[in-house]
């Protein structure tokens, strides 16, 4: 199976499988989650590092992933240090094409399939239902493991939980009651990673102004 980046995984988790589109409810924070996933992946790949004041490039060697390399280049050439929250806000703003970009590459990888749909004779849309759903199930299984086995999570799973919590994607595995019970552990885990906290902060500001979802941390 192709290795999915965290940006790929959060798009898979934000997808409404039955219609092959991102859930309308997640759209306000979709770009924030995707860009957060990109920064997280670059951090795990040893290209970025951060502290409480700034996010910065530590290795500008291209990764071979065009989306990741574009972001890495922008951060590496910045002459002014900025915190992770600033980069997430800036890089996710005015990027309406970003979700489609990830959906397209997931379709090219054979994880989603393209379905062109036409309505009212002349309007057409493209949907991306999953081929097998295996990737989503695998991601949800990892999140379930992190939440319920009470052990120290691996960095990648910690970061994925941060994205899932910020977008409300955890509703796929947790009822409202279970979400309330798990909230303290989710918050504790999300805190562990600086970029996870940054995604949570930026998404929280958006939800504060655009209406609530069941968001934690």
């Amino acid at each position: 199976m192709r290795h999915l980046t965290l940006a790929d995984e959060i798009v898979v988790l934000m997808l409404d499988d039955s219609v092959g589109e991102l859930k309308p409810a997640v759209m306000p924070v979709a770009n924030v989650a995707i860009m957060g996933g990109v920064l997280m992946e670059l951090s795990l790949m040893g290209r970025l590092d951060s502290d409480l004041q700034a996010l910065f490039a530590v290795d500008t060697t291209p990764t071979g992933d065009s989306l990741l390399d574009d972001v890495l280049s922008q951060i590496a050439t910045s002459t002014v240090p900025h915190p992770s929250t600033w980069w997430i806000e800036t890089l996710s703003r005015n990027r309406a094409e970003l979700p489609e970009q990830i959906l397209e590459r997931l379709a090219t990888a054979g994880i989603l399939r393209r379905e062109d749909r036409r309505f009212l004779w002349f309007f057409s849309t493209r949907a991306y239902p999953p081929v097998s759903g295996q990737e989503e199930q695998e991601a949800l299984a990892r999140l379930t493991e992190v939440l319920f086995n009470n052990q120290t999570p691996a960095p990648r799973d910690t970061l994925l939980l941060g994205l899932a919590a910020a977008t409300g994607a955890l509703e796929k595995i947790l009822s409202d009651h279970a979400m309330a019970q798990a909230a303290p552990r989710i918050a504790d885990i999300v805190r562990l990673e600086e970029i996870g906290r940054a995604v949570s902060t930026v998404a929280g500001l958006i939800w504060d102004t655009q209406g609530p979802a069941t968001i934690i941390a």
Partner: protein
Amino acid sequence: MDITSHIEAGLATLTLDGRLDFATSRVLEKAAADILDGGTHRILIDMAAVPYVSSAGLRAILVAAKAAQATGGGIAIHGLQPMVADVFITSGFGQIVILAETGAEARDRLLAGKAA
């Protein structure tokens, strides 16, 4: 970063000197992995001479703590400088490792097996 390692009576002590960031985090990861692979599962880390810790540095500690806990052991850290302590507190690392003021307290809590 310089790391010195000492193992005695089932307890490993790592003394760090220098910045713990992306460039040095793998040195710590390897030092901790070597100790765990050698059969010692409790690690005491003296960070009194560490003036800076980045996200990559924290992640190295997270990885080491996960590996130590998987074998029934754990990690205790002491001597944090104020700015470094801020990083640990903001990140909630007190839930992952034992954070203590002194080496003696860290050692006692680690040997007692008390949760972080």
